């Protein structure tokens, strides 16, 4: 399956980078993670703030869906969240912006090793997939509520 266009661009960039630059790009994304927090006055269709066993600190995922069914994610991260999780937050907020809920749910997770490298996936598997799982989770809740409201 193809990835959404913005995510495809990010994946292509990472695939073209040698290991040191890939690492540097991950750090840049991680450093920018705080910019993905909700902005002053923003409202959301769903909010899900919780501390899971799989993550070292609290993560809040906020979902806004436009009238054209375009998703926008915002994410808050507790201070103990690991660097890779921070990087994946920035990558996914950017890469999934504008997708429909259905597209978000259908995204295969196989892009993750293309971004972070197979070694890191093997070593830190819980970290690299966590944010994607949370984003899919909140999107599925939104879709289920929409379906329930129609019946």
């Amino acid at each position, binding site marked *: 399956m193809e990835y959404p266009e913005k995510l495809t661009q990010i994946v292509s960039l990472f695939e073209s980078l040698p290991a040191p630059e890939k690492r540097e790009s991950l*750090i840049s994304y*991680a450093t920018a993670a705080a910019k993905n927090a909700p902005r002053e006055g923003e409202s959301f269709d769903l909010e899900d703030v919780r501390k899971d*066993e*799989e993550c070292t600190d609290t993560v809040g995922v906020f979902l806004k869906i436009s009238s054209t069914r375009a998703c926008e994610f915002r994410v808050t991260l507790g201070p103990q969240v*690991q*660097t*890779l999780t921070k990087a994946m937050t920035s990558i996914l907020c950017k890469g999934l912006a504008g997708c429909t809920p259905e597209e978000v749910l259908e995204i295969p997770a196989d892009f993750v090793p293309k971004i972070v490298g197979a070694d890191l996936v093997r070593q830190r598997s819980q970290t690299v997939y966590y944010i994607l799982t949370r984003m899919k989770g909140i999107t599925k809740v939104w879709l289920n509520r929409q379906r329930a409201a129609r019946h």
Partner: protein
Amino acid sequence: MIDKNYAQPDALVTTQWVSEHLSDSGVRLVESNEDYLLYDTGHIQGAVHIDWRADLQDQTIRDYVSPKQFAELCERHGISNETTVVFYGDKSNWWACYALWTFRLFGHEKVKIMDGGRDKWVGENRHLTRAVPHFVKGRYTPAAERRDVEIRAFYDQALAHSRAGHALIDVRSPGEFRGEITHMPEYPQEGVLRGGHVPGAASVPWKMAVKEDGTFKSAAELHAIYEEEAGLMRGQDVIAYCRIGERSSHTWFVLTYLLGYKNVRNYDGSWTEWGNRVGAPIERG
């Protein structure tokens, strides 16, 4: 140096001591973390990064690198046999203690821990840099062999220890010890088939050795925890274990350097070996 009546007070240094030795050519700072990319986001000036898995462990077999590979690692980081290596890291110095224990495994003598680790340094708003230092290659003569016999325990030795009723310390969380979970709180299940603990082991979670800020408790407090409560005695042959040997390295450091125990071994196979081993005896509850 820190004086809390420790057996070897010079094994611990303060953040202030580190800040005063940033340009000391005889001292090398080593950052070792659980968070693989944390060093790259910023580290203490002059600190090198040593990763427990990529640098210290063999990449195929579950074991450590050879003495020759260890010597090459040290030389790459400008570390010679006489260099004083000061370790620090995240998670209250779990991986820093693991790296220190591994350095001792290869016979490196001059090792220290920065009390409180990376969080304390950051909490004091001390400077971090992203500049990766480059040092003149060190001259490191590899040890003839690792000191496995002295400070490392293997499954058979831990089993014999258990059967003989000798001192075994399980430093995992109470839930792991009781067999209710097979992983640390906040961590995923990582492939252990059985939960519980080694028969006869005493539960002394690693965290009991540190204060809220991640610094070690005083010798008197540690004495109360390990000796009065857990029943350890100086002179005993003690084996500590956890899940993969990192938290038990922390306790190994406490018992060896802060309380002065002479015969402490870290069972680095720990629960990921014991809990998967066919026929290994297990206690629960």
